[in-house]
């Protein structure tokens, strides 16, 4: 009969070996992905579909997700009659791009309207131009906007009209980050510090970054 303590030792040895094998496996895996970058925002790689839509840009031109391949895309849902949070978010994105310097030329902010009734391409053009030259305003048919919103599990609700016919639209506040190949990579929320977005965009835009 084996004494209790030596049985324990054997078991522990077995466990250690298992752990070691597991660690080796992880190393091998991360080697395959050649992705040992540290992201500060939420990494959604492989968990969300590629950038794809059929909408109209702020020049009135029909565009698809394919038109933005080669650019790092920041996708944000909002509307122009939103006086506080949408302008704040776009202003923050503008500041983040300014911090990136020339690297930001390869970034496009896609501001997608969840209020197609009021946000015509003309209105969208005046709006996005007031924030950043790399911002594009997208609107389109309600069903096309809904399709894009559903694709990224984003939500929006038109609130009841007020006495003067004005209305608000509640909407998801997340910013979706796509790499140059249109792959969904990161999710930024208003709770994330601006530096985190700048850090991750820098990483995504730098030469040799995994894509």
């Amino acid at each position: 009969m084996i004494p209790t303590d030596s049985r324990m030792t054997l078991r522990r040895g077995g466990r250690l070996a298992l752990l070691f094998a597991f660690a080796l496996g992880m190393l091998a895996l991360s080697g395959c992905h050649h992705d040992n970058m540290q992201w500060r925002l939420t990494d959604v790689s492989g968990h969300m579909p590629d950038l794809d839509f059929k909408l109209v840009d702020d020049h009135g031109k029909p565009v698809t997700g394919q038109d933005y391949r080669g650019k790092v895309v920041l996708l944000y849902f909002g509307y122009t009659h939103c006086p506080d949070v949408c302008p704040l978010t776009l202003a923050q994105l503008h500041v983040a791009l300014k911090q990136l310097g020339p690297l930001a030329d390869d970034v496009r902010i896609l501001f997608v309207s969840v209020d197609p009734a009021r946000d015509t391409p003309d209105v969208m053009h005046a709006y996005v131009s007031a924030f950043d030259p790399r911002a594009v305003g997208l609107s389109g048919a309600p069903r096309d906007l809904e399709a894009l919103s559903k694709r990224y599990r984003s939500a929006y609700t038109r609130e009841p009209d007020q006495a003067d016919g004005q209305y608000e639209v509640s909407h998801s506040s997340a910013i979706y980050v796509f790499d140059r190949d249109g792959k969904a990579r990161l999710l930024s929320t208003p709770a994330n510090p601006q530096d985190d977005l700048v850090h991750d965009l820098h990483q995504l835009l730098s030469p040799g970054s995994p894509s």
Partner: protein
Amino acid sequence: MSLRTLYALPLLAAGLLPAVRAHATEAEHVRATHAWIRVLPGDLPAGGYVTLENSSAQPATLQGASSPAYGSVMLHQSSTEGGMGRMVMVDSLVVPAHGKAELAPGGYHLMLMKAAAPVKTGDKLKFALQFSDGSTLDVDFVARPANATGDSP
């Protein structure tokens, strides 16, 4: 009663208040700084922001604001609870005794609609902040560009 008298009545009442009351008004104890407006293109609604500091031992309650520059001024609050951006109208905002309250992007703000004339960056716009005791505080708000993040360049 003529329109002119009608307009003068609240002013008259406000002028009498210090005489009838032992204490100074709420507005007299509140200092407003960092007052600015984010100007958006066209006639889109804009956000107004200001920091209020109360030097009194009593809380002061902001109940609203008005401005000759805008047909509609409402006290609002934004929230991003549960990942959803929302705006709600609020009746009042308390500036605590010896404390401060901030109307700042992403939180409390004045929603400004129906501009009397197009507002340009750099414009100074007159606002009257109304407190619960009927007193008002005159504050100049500076118009800042859409992509500003605060009241200074």
